[in-house]
């Protein structure tokens, strides 16, 4: 596949850590990321998302398979690829003793950009990250959300064709997350191709055009959020909570309501096309849940259906 259609193309991509013990972090995955789209890897911790991102970012060599990024082979032309990537690692790698603008300057110099170019871009990047007032502040004085935004601003200093974001909002409070989402959405609108990993389904739903659901080093499903939900789960979900000692009993009684019942440690999920009718049926069977909630099915349910486990445990 040529660069005009796929910016990243992986076939049988594998990563094995020799160990001991030997650990297959990524077990042969195929995917293509198209120009201008936001592509997400969704999965729990340890699914192989970050390892995949590190391979795309050319900071971890693959153990097998093919990986082509921006038309170059990831193993042979690392410098050429990295020059056109933006990278937001899971942990911020800012220098906390230097100022906001110094961090951007140092990073820009790593790309071989002239100081004048970096200085001119810094104005725009800080404005984008809403950090203009913090320009000369030391990074150690910034909040978690500000640091994350600075990391993103810094990753854009080389005006990348492809931006990699590994767990961009993990550890942020809701307000900081929403601000970050809004900024990322703007980038996407500006035509920057995004690849991100997340274990938050709302993040994946908000930001991603297409998603690869990962579990145990493999891609277990992929498609748009809408497609995944339509393919793997019902339209609605009825969530029922019972006193913990009656949980098992209630599960037995509820058997057969809706298309499928999923028993979680703290609640029952009843997959159905019509949540209200399912709730009526529950009451008709003499069940008296502490709480009952009808909601639309989401990616969390897709993941549960595919793997039998919840995403955030």
């Amino acid at each position, binding site marked *: 596949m040529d660069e005009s259609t796929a910016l990243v193309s992986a076939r049988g991509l594998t990563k094995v*850590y020799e160990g001991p013990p030997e650990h297959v972090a990524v077990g042969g995955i195929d995917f293509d990321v198209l120009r201008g789209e936001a592509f997400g890897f969704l999965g729990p911790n340890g699914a192989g998302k970050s390892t995949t991102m590190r391979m795309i*970012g050319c*900071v*971890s*060599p693959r153990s097998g398979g093919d990986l082509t990024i921006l038309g170059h082979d990831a193993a042979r032309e*690392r*410098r050429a690829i*990295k*020059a056109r*990537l933006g*990278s937001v*690692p899971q*942990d*911020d*790698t*800012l*220098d906390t*003793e*230097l100022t906001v603008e*110094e961090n951007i*300057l*140092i*990073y820009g*110099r*790593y*790309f*071989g950009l002239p100081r004048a170019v970096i200085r001119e871009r810094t104005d725009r990047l800080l404005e984008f990250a809403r950090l203009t007032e913090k320009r000369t502040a030391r990074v150690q004085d910034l909040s978690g959300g500000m640091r994350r935004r600075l990391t993103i601003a810094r990753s854009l200093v*080389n005006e990348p064709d492809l931006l990699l974001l590994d767990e961009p909002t993990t550890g942020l409070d809701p307000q900081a997350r929403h601000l970050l989402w809004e900024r990322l959405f703007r980038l996407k609108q500006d035509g920057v191709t995004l690849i991100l990993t997340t274990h938050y389904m709302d993040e994946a739903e908000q930001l991603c055009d297409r998603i690869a659901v990962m579990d145990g080093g493999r891609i277990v499903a992929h498609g748009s959020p809408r497609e995944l939900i339509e393919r793997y789960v019902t339209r609605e979900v009825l969530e029922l909570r019972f006193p913990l000692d009656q949980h098992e009993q209630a599960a037995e009684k509820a058997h057969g309501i809706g298309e499928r019942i999923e028993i979680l440690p703290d609640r029952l999920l009843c997959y159905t096309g019509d949540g209200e009718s399912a709730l009526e049926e529950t009451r008709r069977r003499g069940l008296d849940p502490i709480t009952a909630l009808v909601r639309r099915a989401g990616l969390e349910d897709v993941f549960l259906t595919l793997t039998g486990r919840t995403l955030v445990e």
Partner: protein
Amino acid sequence: MSLPAFHEFGYWWHRYRRTWRGTAVISIANPLLFVTALGFGLGRLVDERNSAYLHGGSYLAFIGPGLLAASAMQMGFIHGSGPVFQSARTGGNFRAAVTTPMEPSDIFTGHLLFTAFRATLDSAAILLVLLIFRAASPGALAGAVLTALAFATPISAYAVTADRPAKLSAVFRFVIMPLYMFSGTFFPAEQLPDPLRTLVWLSPLWHGTELCRGSGPILVHVLVLLALIVAGYLAGRRAYTGRLTA
């Protein structure tokens, strides 16, 4: 030398501009305090006894180059241990640099360049004072820089793989300190009892000290230190690549 290495040098230079006053105390003032206390204080006692081991020279002239070499070793350790360990950790500078067109070997080389720069600068400052008291010769600068790099390269190679800081303190306690004591810094190695005197030959610091004093087979001293630098550099390139791009 690859150009990207200079970008890493630039990073350390940037940090140095912020902290140079503080670091000057450790790397320049401390050795000079030693020179003053030992050279002028203890030296008076030593010189009165007119020790044959000093071959007619003053104790200050003996200990000056010795402390220059020892402080160079310490610079090598200081630059090669803590900063490398910190930068290679999750969230450290090396982790940022490696996501750019920089490769692990550029990062390593750049940091070594900065270490060489700092060793030159700080050793020159100490040497300047020694020169005023005629306690060393200008050629000692090259010996000091070689000594610093002979320690910085292998220590960096080790520090980049270290999983906890205790391993680095162990290097200081069990390698740097004994070498400091028994490499002819404070007293001539010939004074040591026989088996120890032979062991001194194995000490890189002893070769550095002798080089700074301009005594003994100069070429051998230079070759020993260069061998350590080359071996440390090759090991370091592998270690940096292994740690930063696993």
